[in-house]
Each structure stands twice: as C-alpha cells, then as structure tokens.
C-alpha cells in the first residue's frame, strides 16, 4: 500500500479529516487513486445505513417463517428459564451407562467379530437399580413443537408445508415423505411406513415406528435427543444418520454416520457407522457394502443448498433441468423462487428422471424420488442447456415476449424498464427496452447509452459477441470523446475473448493500455496480455 493511500486510510480511521489541509489531501488523493476509489466503493456498498439495512433481503414467506421461529424459540427458552432445573431424561441412565462403559466401547469390535465368528449375543448391560437414580421433579409442561412436511414424492394428500402435531399417526402409503423437526432433524419415510411422533419437544424427539422404513438424520452438536421406538427395541441418536426398517419379525438398523445407542431386551449396544443390527433376530449382522452405499446416497442425495434469498448451488453430475429449464451438467449457481419445483435429470442411459424439490429459505432442500424414471413420449424432454455466458442463471419464470408499449413511452421510461429488467436478470427484456430506445429515440443522448448497454448485454449475457462488438464500435464512432469510450473498448475486448480472436483481443488490450494506463482495469488487462502474448524467442 502506497504511503499516500495509508495516509488517506488514517484520515478515514480518524472519522474524517481534522483540518482543511487533510480534507484537501483526501479529496485530491481519492480523485487520483483508482485503488482507493475501488476500495471506498466496495466498503460504501456494505455500510448499513438507517433505512437501508436489508442488504440480503428475504422473501415474504421466508421472512415470516424466520420471525415466527425466533418468537417461538424465544418463548420456549423463556419457559425453560422459568422452570426449576430440568434434568435430562438421560440422567436416570447415567449410572448404567457408566457401569457398562467398557462393554459399550467394545461393542463395535464385537460386531466386527461377528462377521467371522459364530453367532454372539449382543453385550448386555445391567440396568441400574431404580433406587440409585437421582430423584427428579417432573418438569412443567413445555409447549410442543410441530413436525413439518418438507417434501412429498408420489401421490399423497399431504403437501409441503403441512405441520404435524405429536401423537398424530402417519401412514405414508404410496408416497415418500420428508419431514423436519426443529429445522434440524430430518426424517424420511418411505412408502408403507407407519409411525407417530410421540414427543416433539425442543431438543427431544421421540418417534414410534410401527412398520416400514425411516431414514433419520440428526446433525451433531445441536443437542437434539432423538429416539425411535420399534416393536423390537429403542434406538437413540448420538448425532448421526441411520435408517430403520421395521417388520413383524425384526427391526433392521443400519448406521451411515456417527453412532447410535440401541436398547432392546434390557440390553444396550452402541452401533457405529458402517454397521447394522437386527433387533429381534438371533444375532447382530453387518451392513453389506451395497446397502451402506445406498443408505449414504439416499441420505446425502443431491442437495440444493440455499443461502436464504433463493440463490442455490447445485452440484450436478448429469444433465439437470429445473422447471423445464436446462442447466447442463456443470455445477451452477442459480436463482429459484421458494416452494416446490420439478427437477429432471438424465440418468446414465439418457432417460429423464423426474423428482420434486422443495426449496426452503436458508435450509438445504433435498431432491428425492430419483427412482421414477419412466419417460412418456408426451413428456417434454429437458432442454439443451447450450453455452452459458455467466455462471449465474435465473430461472425465475419470465413472460415470453411481453408487450412493450414503445410508441408512447419516453426514453427515460424505457431506460427505467431496462433497469428493472436487469434487476430481475431478465436480459432479453432489458435488450428489448434498449433496442426500443435506439429505435424510437435515435437522436437522444439516452440512445447512445442504450447502444453501449445493449452491446454489453449481448457480449456478457446473451451470447452474441459479434453484435455486441458492432454496437460498441458504433458507440465509439459516434462518441469518440464520450464518457463511456473506455467502457466500450473494454466490452470489445471481452467480445474478442468470447469469440476466441486472441490476436484482435491482444491488439485491443494494447490500444486500451496505451490510452488509459492508469485505469482500474489496467493491471488485470496487463496480466491477460501476458497470458495471450506468445513467449519471445530466446
């Protein structure tokens, strides 16, 4: 950092110039130092001013949900704080767990041995006498929470957003349901599952699985005690992901991540990642590689990760389209509205797989039901994504060719239309507005600005670098000393780069650097030039 820049920063840190000479210095320095101007511009953008505090706005639904969640949690916290010390239900088991610690640690080892040895009963832990357990005062009732349906795949009367209270029996029949509790615990119920949330308390969730298949995922470090009771035993989560399949004869548990504690027939066994346990069967069993891989895949799935404002990152390995908009196969960042979207991806044989994604603000949303691969002839195929000019793609539906009232609209109104379209990333709409300005207000100054803006759009967003270059050339020709000539030349350089015309690009960079050697872009252009320039002969 140059000494003058440091002096300028010191003035900023001091809260402004102390005297007239400092003020003069700051003004002069800022005018002549592009680096400081850039830094100042960037820092000014992040300043939270009164009335302008929403730099990353949420949509109305997400906003309402957040406010409701905050008020609900704050209320629960208040209730908890007003209660006498609330002992964890695990406290009653503490002595038993301590007594059997050695056996618990050895449990995975025993399970491993069971692969090669004769059937071995699961290690037993004697229950602690009840008289030794600390006397606890029953806690005051805490307001129950609700489980929320986040995803429905298949035919079902429930829809995403439905809230389910504790004690409500749930039968999935032909559909797969994805539910969240406390926004952190994720439960996926496959078709044919019958279960009930026995308890939906903050940080304490209890599920009764009567039959069928559940995948459960509880993140570590959230302090959530989740337990699933089946006809054959009780499975307690210690921060993990696992699946349970309950039938009349047995319950099969497979653990994908972390560890779970299983209680059955007065015994406790800790089952680690990569292992399975059959409750009600003769002996513990291990998970096959394919079962584990399938479980991990179903739990991990392809995720759409939102940042709270509808921007999503999709790690797509295959051709992917959302709401019939093709996105190609490369990782992309895109903008979608909150709510349900149809997702189609091509499988290894090129057949479209359809699924539904529920996009929820700030939370990961899971694409599911990937097994439905039947493609009917009348179903639309995913569109060819084609080349993309930008890694950001908006798939917010845009009306096709909306009517543009050009005859009566002023250049200013059309510019506003263009600005609005740009804000919504509606590039074709913005291009139409700019074209209308050029066509209907040819002699106005706005037409010149529109010409350059249209050129930039064509180069940067619309994949038409030839036309963009021509528009910029016209701008320069008509405004040889115009305020935006440098911008137009930069746009031409980008057009050459898009077209792969590196010799022309190099010449344009040389020309730019000779005319504006101190421009903010000069350093980057010089680096680009070094890349493009063939090494000189020794």
């Amino acid at each position, binding site marked *: 950092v140059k000494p003058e820049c440091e002096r300028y920063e010191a003035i900023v840190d001091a809260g402004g110039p102390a005297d007239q000479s400092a003020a003069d210095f700051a003004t002069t320095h800022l005018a002549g130092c592009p680096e400081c101007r850039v830094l100042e*511009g*960037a820092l000014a953008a992040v300043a*939270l001013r009164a009335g302008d505090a929403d*730099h990353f706005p949420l949509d109305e639904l997400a906003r309402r949900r*957040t406010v409701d969640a905050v008020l609900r949690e704050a209320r629960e916290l208040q209730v908890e704080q007003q209660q006498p010390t609330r002992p964890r239900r695990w406290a009653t088991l503490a002595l038993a767990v301590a007594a059997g610690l050695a056996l618990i640690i050895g449990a995975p080892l025993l399970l491993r041995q069971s692969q090669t040895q004769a059937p071995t009963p699961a290690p037993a832990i004697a229950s602690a006498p009840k008289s030794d357990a600390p006397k606890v005062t029953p806690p005051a009732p805490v307001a129950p929470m609700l489980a929320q349906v986040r995803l429905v795949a298949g035919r079902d009367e429930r829809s995403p957003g439905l809230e389910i209270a504790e004690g409500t029996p749930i039968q999935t029949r032909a559909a797969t349901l994805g539910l969240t509790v406390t926004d952190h615990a994720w439960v996926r119920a496959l078709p044919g599952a019958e279960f009930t949330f026995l308890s939906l308390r903050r940080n304490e969730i209890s599920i009764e699985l009567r039959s069928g298949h559940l995948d459960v995922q509880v993140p570590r470090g959230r302090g959530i005690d989740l337990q699933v009771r089946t006809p054959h035993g009780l499975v307690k989560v210690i921060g993990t992901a696992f699946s349970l399949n309950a039938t009349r004869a047995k319950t099969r548990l497979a653990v994908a991540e972390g560890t779970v504690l299983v209680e059955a027939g007065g015994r406790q066994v800790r089952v680690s990642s990569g292992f399975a346990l059959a409750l009600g069967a003769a002996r513990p069993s291990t998970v096959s590689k394919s079962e584990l891989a399938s479980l991990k895949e179903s739990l991990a799935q392809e995720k759409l990760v939102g940042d709270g404002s509808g921007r999503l990152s999709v790690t797509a390995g295959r051709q992917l389209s959302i709401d019939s908009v093709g996105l190609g196969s490369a990782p992309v960042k895109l903008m979608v509205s909150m709510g349900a979207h149809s997702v189609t991806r091509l499988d290894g044989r090129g057949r479209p797989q359809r699924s539904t994604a529920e996009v929820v603000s700030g939370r990961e949303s899971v694409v599911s039901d990937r097994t439905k691969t039947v493609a009917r002839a009348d179903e639309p195929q995913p569109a060819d994504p084609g080349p993309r000019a930008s890694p950001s793609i908006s798939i917010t539906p845009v009306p096709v060719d909306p009517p543009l009232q050009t005859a009566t609209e002023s250049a200013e109104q059309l510019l506003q239309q263009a600005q609005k379209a740009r804000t919504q990333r509606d590039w074709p709409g913005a291009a139409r507005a700019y074209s209308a300005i050029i066509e209907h207000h040819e002699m106005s100054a706005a037409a010149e600005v529109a010409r350059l803006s249209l050129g930039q759009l064509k180069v940067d967003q619309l994949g038409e670098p030839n036309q963009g270059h021509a528009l910029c050339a016209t701008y320069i020709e008509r405004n040889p000393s115009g305020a935006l000539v440098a911008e137009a030349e930069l746009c031409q350089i980008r057009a050459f780069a898009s077209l792969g015309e590196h010799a022309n690009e190099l010449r344009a960079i040389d020309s730019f650097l000779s005319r504006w050697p101190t421009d903010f872009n000069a350093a*980057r252009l010089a680096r680009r030039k070094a890349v493009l320039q063939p090494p000189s002969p020794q």
Partner: protein
Amino acid sequence: VHEGDSTLVAAAARGDEQARRELVNRLLGRVRSTVMYLASRSPDVDDMTQRSLIEVLGACGTYRGESTVEAWADRITTRTVMRLIKRSRLSEAREQGVDEVPEYPEWSRDIQNPAEVSDQRRAMATLLARLPEERREAMVLKHVHGYSVEEIAAATQTKVNTVRDRLRVARAELRTWLNEAPDGGDRET
C-alpha cells in the same frame, strides 16, 4: 435517550407479543446482513440470524435507550456471531474451503442499480469471509456498522493500535483481492 425505542424494547422485555414481533421484524434485515458479512461462508447463516435475534429478545431488559435499538442490536449480533464462529471452528473451514467471489461486480461507488449493488455486497461478503476472524470483525464494525476505532477497541476489548493494525492489514488484503479477477481468465477484462 431514544424514547420510542425504549418503549418498544421495554414492552418486549415484559413479554408483550406484539412488541416482540415488531422488534424482530424491524431488526431481522439488519441482523441478517451483519451475519452475512461476518459469516457468509457458514452454512448456518439463518441459524445464526435466529440465534442472534433470540439473544436480542433475551437482552431486552438491559436496553437503556442510550443508542438506537439498531446499534444496540448490532453489538449483540456481532458478539453472538463471533462466539458461534469460534465455537464452530469456522476459521479452519476458511483455510480449507473454496471462496470464489460469486459475481464479478464493478467496484464503483457510483453504482446505483440495486442488482449491481446487491452483487457488490455479496462479493464483499465473500471477500470479508477470507479475512481472519479478528480482522473481519474489526472491518465489519468499522465499515458495516460505522464504529470508530476507539469504539471497536472497547467492544472487542483490544488496544486501539491493535484495531488500527487489523484494519490496515485487512484493507491491504482487500485491495489485492479487489484488483484480482476471481476466475483468473474468463473475466480478465
């Protein structure tokens, strides 16, 4: 004394549900913005926002009306988020993670277009996330919340010269990044 704010916060402290809702609605955007600038790399931005707002509600009884409710909430939010960041070892993730600037905006203070300003803010949130925690905290307090160097020193229990040093080094880093193309080629121009 900010009387209107004091009345609102006092009502919220008494448990008045309408006042609490009004307070959360009023502060949500600001708190979320602060969280984004302090922890844009975290997957728990919304969680941090909610926890910060819960902290604000829990601290209503301590509001004395000596500053605006926004400035008071800024302090609580910064403290909460920095605590959560340290707890979740975000600094380690910072060293290992990918930190592409999402968009490549023009860095000009003359930009008025909301979409471009939004791009600038997102890109700056990403660049701020590259800074070590202490420098990031100082930069956010100084340039996002408008604290003086002395106020930052008091809020972070650090010496004034240390704060100056953190700001100086952070800005030098930002200067370098702001003059770099994020993808090294495609956007050279």
